Structure formats: structure tokens, C-alpha cells
């Protein structure tokens, strides 16, 4: 090359200078476990499905969600959404309305008629599922998708278990429940209704089943001893709620006393209110100590349900009861005061919890039962090889989501067991704690409120109380997600590097570091909104 006067060298590019050698720490992309996902009892990848919902791709979001939980429309109505309590956004303004977006996706799927991809594998194995509640149906779904032949047997006339015969329809409309159940049946799951299993080993033998998953729930209402005259009408809450599903509605009268402070007590009182009664809940401790969720108590109070806190029933007569006032001692236990009060009552409904009917397990060797529930190993197998169990009948929190989680977990272990293998759950990522986020980058946006049915209709009809979000609101709500610990392609790292050492791979493909030039300043890690970059010491 001809050079101008006094120039001796050809021009060169600084690319020859590999500044990566300066580095003492290197940035590395990671995925962290969002706290919502960590919390979800059904193991949903919440951040993952919200990611798709954020771009308005609801079908992909729904498919991603239903990898783990086939019941988003049900979840969106009855799940206690502890995920929201764990949500990092709660530390900024209020948690992402995960549950309401889930409901939107579930409802959208029903509206659009989305179905699960047909099963294309066949293992040749047969699994019996006893109980068509959330746990049994979740297991059936996952087992079927793994290619097994699944038969679900239930004593009752409908699918859904306690979701059908316990949870009232003003919280869970039956068409929604039935539609999500039938979508699983459509995968090729065999269902036998009105056919109780009386002896599990015999049923397995006659049906030639290779394994069984038991999820019979807890349906026997607990009793309390209350001295009562002959005419006093004392019934249990589970029977009352169950008969709501039949032809003959329960006869409770006008003045209904509900005894208990759990969610069942609230549901039965709200049901009585809707049938024209004036229900009063009697509970021995106070509101703070009541096992029912506070929002449920609040909704009941709004509808005109009355509550006598710190009271026990001493006696039930023909048309009245006697209650005794209690006080909480230092340890928070209720103690009698000797002060009595008489209240008018046409009936007393006991809502004191439920026991499990373990009749079908009589004589099964190896089983271990403690406190009325069946013990299971971490892989959900009972002491009897090949018999697994989950849901309300095993020691755990009793709710729909836990039951669904058990079903999924059991299905994976049953699948492995049928192949004489063991299922290893993939190692969990480190949790994306709030401190790892750079929240500067998120727009300010408070939570969207779900519409509520007006109070008159709530007191007199069984119409659904809580409405869903419309599309605009659901999109807004999804976009409030901070994408904790998982790259959402905001391009910050690509932009903020003073050394152009971040390579953008294109939409959906994320980024890569160019370690030839990365000096390890750490700006990318500091400015990543969601904490998806860590600095690791360079090995020398």
C-alpha cells in the first residue's frame, strides 16, 4: 500500500487487541427460579407462561401452562394462589395477578376450544386411578401423556371430586369444571363413574393393572359431641354441600348455625344465605386465628353472613342453641368463661373438618396409616409396591393445587416405576430473590382489580361472584411480571456493554458473551433488570 508522507504503518483495527485478557471476573448468563414458580404447589412455570402471555400469544401461554397443570380455568377460580404472596413485584407495588391471568388463559382455551395434543406413544402399561378429584385427574392426565393406559374409577356420578361436591358453584361454575375434566377424558382416559373401589388389590388384579394411584380425598365429616334434644337438627357441612348437587336441596330452615371456622364453614354459610337463610357462623377462636382465608371471610361478611367469634356450642335444643363465650389464653388457645347465651336455631351445620375413608385399603400389606391418613414416600408410593397415593388422603395441606401437584409428581414416579427406573427431578435453579433484580427498569403499574358481582345477586343467586379479566386487562397484568431470574430479551446487556462484547443472537435466541473483548466490568450484570447474569471469578 502506498503510504502518505511520514506514515510507515498500515491502518489497523482495534479488534487485534483482545481486551478479554484483562478480565478477573466473567459474566455468565443464568436462569434462576422465580419465587412464584418455587411456591406453586402444582409446579407451574408461571414466569414461563406469563412470558408468552406478555406478547399476546395466549395459546402458547396456555400450552406452556398445561404442561404442568391441566386445569387453568379451575385454578383461576379456586386456587389459593400462594404464588402471589411470593411474587417479587409485591415488594414494588402489588403482586402480579397471576391467578387472574391464569383464569383468563383457561377461559380463553375453553372459548377457543383448544385441546391437548393427542398422545402418540403407547407403553402397554395399565394404571388404575381411584378417585376423579383434582389429584386423580391430574395423575390421569400426566400418565396418559406418558403413554400409559389409564382407567379412572370414581364412586360418584360426576368427575371433579370435592370440586364438584364441596366447592359451591358460585365460586366454580360446573360447566367450567366439566369442560376441563372432559378435555382430559378426550385424551383417551377411560372413566368409570358410580363404581366405588372396595378392595384395591382385587380391583387391580381383575383389571390387570400394573400400578395404581389412589386419590380418594377426605369425605367423612368430623363430628363433635353436642348434647342435643331429639328434635335438634344437626347435619354435617359436607353432606349439605353434596346435596346441593342433587335434586333434593337440603332443608336447613331460616336460622342456620354453622359450627367451625374453616373454608368449608364459610362456603356452607354462603350457600345457606343464597337459599334464603340467615346463617350465623359460631367459631371458638377469633378471626385472626380462623383457618379460613381472610378474603373468604370478608366476602361472606359482605354478603350478610354473621359470625360469633370466640364461642362454642354447649347444647342444641329444638329451636335454639346455647353458646358459651371463650377467651384466648396466653398461648392463643380458647378457654371457657362460664358466660352463656341462647340463640335461635333451626339447624346446626357442623363444619369441623373431614376424615379419610380408607375402607378400600383394608388388608393391603405394607401400608402405613397415621392420624387417619396414608403415609407415602417422597416418590408418592405407599408402603405397598405399585400403589401410590396423593391429595387429601396423604399427609399434606389439603387444597386443590397441592392435590394436582401430587398427581403430577406421582405420575412421573409411576412412569419410572413401570420402567423399573427411578425418576430424578431436574436440579432446581437458585431462587431469583428481590435483591438480584434491578427494578429501575420496570414501568410503574399497580395491579388490575377483577370485577365483582353486585351484592344483591351474590346474596340471592349462585351466579359466579368473581369475574374474569378482559383481554386488555389480562395483557396488562401479564406485562407487570418482572420475569424474575429469566432473560426476557430487553437488550440491556447488549446495549450497556462499553466494549460491544455482548452478541445478540436474534429474537427468541437470547445473547452470548464475546470473551475475547469482555473486560469483566460487570455493568451488564448490574443493569440486567431480572438478574439473569452473574459474575464469576475467572479461573487463573
Amino acid at each position: 500500500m502506498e503510504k502518505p508522507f511520514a506514515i510507515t504503518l498500515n491502518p489497523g483495527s482495534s479488534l487485534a487487541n483482545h481486551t478479554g485478557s484483562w478480565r478477573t471476573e466473567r459474566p455468565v448468563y443464568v436462569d434462576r427460579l422465580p419465587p412464584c414458580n418455587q411456591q406453586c404447589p402444582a409446579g407451574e412455570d408461571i414466569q414461563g407462561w406469563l412470558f408468552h402471555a406478555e406478547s399476546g400469544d395466549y395459546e402458547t401461554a396456555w400450552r406452556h401452562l398445561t404442561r404442568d397443570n391441566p386445569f387453568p380455568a379451575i385454578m383461576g377460580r379456586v386456587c389459593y394462589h400462594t404464588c402471589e404472596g411470593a411474587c417479587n413485584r409485591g415488594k414494588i407495588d402489588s403482586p402480579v395477578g397471576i391467578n387472574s391471568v391464569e383464569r383468563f388463559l383457561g377461559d380463553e382455551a375453553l372459548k377457543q376450544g383448544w385441546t391437548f395434543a393427542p398422545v402418540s406413544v403407547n407403553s402397554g402399561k395399565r394404571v388404575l386411578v381411584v378417585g376423579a378429584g383434582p389429584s386423580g385427574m391430574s395423575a390421569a392426565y400426566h400418565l396418559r401423556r406418558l403413554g400409559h393406559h389409564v382407567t379412572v374409577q370414581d364412586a360418584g356420578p360426576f368427575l371433579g371430586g370435592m370440586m364438584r361436591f364441596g366447592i359451591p358453584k358460585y365460586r366454580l361454575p360446573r360447566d367450567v369444571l366439566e369442560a376441563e375434566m372432559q378435555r382430559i377424558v378426550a385424551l383417551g382416559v377411560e372413566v368409570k363413574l358410580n363404581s366405588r373401589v372396595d378392595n384395591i388389590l382385587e380391583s387391580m388384579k381383575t383389571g390387570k393393572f400394573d400400578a395404581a394411584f389412589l386419590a380418594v380425598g377426605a369425605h367423612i365429616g368430623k363430628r363433635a359431641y353436642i348434647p342435643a334434644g331429639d328434635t335438634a337438627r344437626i347435619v354435617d357441612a359436607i353432606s349439605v354441600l353434596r346435596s346441593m348437587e342433587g335434586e333434593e336441596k337440603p332443608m336447613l330452615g331460616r336460622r342456620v348455625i354453622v359450627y367451625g371456622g374453616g373454608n368449608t364453614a364459610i362456603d356452607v354459610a354462603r350457600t345457606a344465605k343464597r337459599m334464603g337463610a340467615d346463617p350465623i357462623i359460631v367459631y371458638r377462636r377469633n378471626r385472626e386465628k380462623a383457618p379460613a382465608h381472610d378474603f373468604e371471610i370478608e366476602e361472606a361478611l359482605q354478603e350478610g353472613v354473621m359470625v360469633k367469634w370466640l364461642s362454642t356450642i354447649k347444647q342444641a335444643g329444638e329451636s335454639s342453641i346455647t353458646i358459651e363465650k371463650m377467651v384466648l389464653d396466653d398461648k392463643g388457645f380458647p378457654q371457657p368463661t362460664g358466660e352463656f347465651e341462647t340463640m335461635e336455631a333451626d339447624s346446626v351445620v357442623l363444619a369441623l373438618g373431614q376424615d379419610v375413608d380408607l375402607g378400600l385399603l383394608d388388608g393391603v400389606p405394607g401400608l402405613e396409616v397415621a392420624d387417619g391418613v396414608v403415609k407415602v414416600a417422597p416418590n408418592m408410593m405407599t408402603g405397598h409396591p405399585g400403589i401410590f397415593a396423593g391429595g387429601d388422603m396423604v399427609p399434606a395441606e389439603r387444597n386443590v393445587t397441592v392435590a394436582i401437584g401430587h398427581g403430577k409428581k406421582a405420575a412421573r414416579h409411576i412412569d419410572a416405576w413401570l420402567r423399573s427406573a427411578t425418576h430424578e427431578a431436574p436440579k432446581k435453579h437458585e431462587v431469583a430473590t428481590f435483591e438480584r433484580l434491578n427494578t429501575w427498569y420496570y414501568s410503574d403499574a399497580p395491579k388490575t382489580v377483577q370485577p365483582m358481582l353486585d351484592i344483591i345477586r351474590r346474596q340471592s343467586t349462585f351466579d359466579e361472584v368473581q369475574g374474569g379479566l378482559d383481554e386488555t386487562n389480562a395483557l396488562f397484568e401479564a406485562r407487570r411480571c418482572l420475569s424474575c431470574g429469566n432473560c426476557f430479551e430487553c437488550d440491556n446487556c447488549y446495549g450497556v456493554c462499553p466494549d460491544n462484547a455482548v452478541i445478540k443472537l436474534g429474537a427468541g435466541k437470547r445473547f452470548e458473551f464475546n470473551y475475547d473483548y469482555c473486560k469483566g466490568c460487570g455493568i451488564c450484570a448490574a443493569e440486567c433488570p431480572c438478574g439473569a447474569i452473574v459474575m464469576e471469578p475467572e479461573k487463573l
Partner: protein
Amino acid sequence: MSMQPVKFYQTGTFTVGNRLLAPEDRSVQSNMERTNSLNSGHRACQGCGEALGARYAIDAAMKATNRQLIAANATGCLEVFSTPYPESSWQIPWIHSLFGNTAAVATGIAAAIKVKKGKGQGGQHGDIRVVAQGGDGGTTDIGFGCLSGMFERNDDVLYICYDNEAYMNTGVQRSSATPPAARTATTMPVGEHPGNNFGQGKFVPAIAMAHGIPYVATATVADLRDLEHKVTKAMSFRGARYLHILVPCPLGWGTASHDTIRMARLAKETGLFPVFEAEYGEVVSSLPIRHRLPVEEYLRPQKRFAHLFGKTPAVATIARIQSMADKNIRKYGLRFTGGA
């Protein structure tokens, strides 16, 4: 007008990109096809704010001019770290001037382009435009005469000052842009008034405005979208334009290399560095503070202010600095507006 449904974009325009925005609404920096005007391999320190600010600004200028751009560059870190003979990181036509005359050199280039255009030798892809760039020393001190002349003659140049508040390239000496109380090699934290003295201040954006030139703006490396917008807007004007970008320097400020953007953000959020734009001598808009913070939040992480936070904190000095921030907030209308 019909109702527009409220669209909410998660990170809005705070982040560099945003997959939820239409491609044409995304930043220059988020684009895989950005020029990377200042390429990898340059010798700036880890976490250099000046290297970052320069790429942000020049990439945006390249986009705005359809890549028809020539840059003149004063001596300073930006020139030294990018172009040790015969290598260069610049991927644009670029010329090194002297320390103090870059405004004049750019004026000359602009004049030459005008002459060539008159002879029918203008750019084939549209007009060729000119930027001049330098550090605060090269701009507010030694280059100030040339700069003022360029303003006064209204030469068709965008002058960009990368303000890291001292002469960094020669080892952190005080400039007229060094803030009061800051420690530099020439303003040591000793004696009765440790660090730089409280002078009258010399805020060149205000001086530029006093020249009545078409466009004057300030920006920081913490607000990319704002910075890009200002470069683009500057390129829509003819005549003299001035952009003053705050670019934290980890070495000179004594901050962690990963805190560069955070420091710029804190300078803006405390009100110490007002971010605004002005046309023909009048302020037309300012970037409001999002979450107002006391100046301590900005000063404390910087070793150049460490002497203010010794055993007995320099309460009076901190209060004086706070009142500077308060004054900026009043003067430039930076008041917190309750979120964005």
C-alpha cells in the same frame, strides 16, 4: 378522536430494547445492525462511561444521517484509548485534532463539505454531516474559545462533550467541570476546604444556550432512549448544536466498574445533573426525576467524595451540594411527577 386502549409495555422505554415494542419504536442500540462506531478492542478502562456514551451517541448520529458522518475528536481518553497508532476502534471517518481546537477543525470540515457540494461533489447518499467531540477539559477549558466561535458563527456542527468531570487521560486533574469538594490529583482533600473549591461553576450547556444556537441538550449514559432522541433531534437542525453527556469515570471518581450507569442515574435522580433540552436559547423540555433521592446517595459511593463521610461527616458541605441540586430542580423543572 376514538379511544386508544391503554398499552403497557412492562419496561417501556427504560430498557435498551423491548420485544413488546414495534421494531421501528426500538432503540438504535437494540438493533443487531447498529454501526458499533466505536468497536471492541479499545483500551478504555473496565466500565468506562465515556466509551459507552460515545458509542451511544455516534451510533445514533450514524443512523440519523444515513451513515454520512465525519467526526473530529479532541485529545483525551476517547481519542487515546480508541486510536493508538496505527490501530483504531472507529468505524466511521474520524480525525484527531489537537486538544483545544476540535470545534475549529469540525468547522473546517463543514466548510469544506459546503465547498465540495457547491462543486457538485457532495455525498452520494445524502448530505455529509459533521460532529466534533471531546472531553470536558477539551471543551470547557482549553477548547472553549474555538467552541464559542463555532457557536457564534452558527457553523453546521454538532459538538458533543463527554463530561467525566476532570482531565482523566493525564491522571485526573481538575477541570472547570469538576464539581465542588471533589478530590482530584490537583485538588487533594487537605486543609480547610478539602477537595475542589466552590467556585462560580461553569455549566457549558447554559453558556451554549446564551449563544442562542438552534439546539442544546444534556443527557447521561443512564437514559439511552433520551440520549438517542437528542442526537436524532440535533441532526434535524442545521447550524451549531451542542450535546453535553455525563459519562461517569470509574477511575477518576473512585467507583466500581459495574456502577457506571448507576452513578449517572443517581446524578440525574438527585437533581445534581439536570437533563433537559433547549432550542434557540430556551428550555423546551426536561427529563423529570422519577424517584427523588438526597445527594448523599450519589456522593457516598464515590471515593472522590470519601472525605465528606469521614468520622465527622461534612454536613455543611453536603448541604451546600444539596442546595445545588435543589436549585437545578427549580430551575429546570425536574420535579418528581409520580412515576412514568
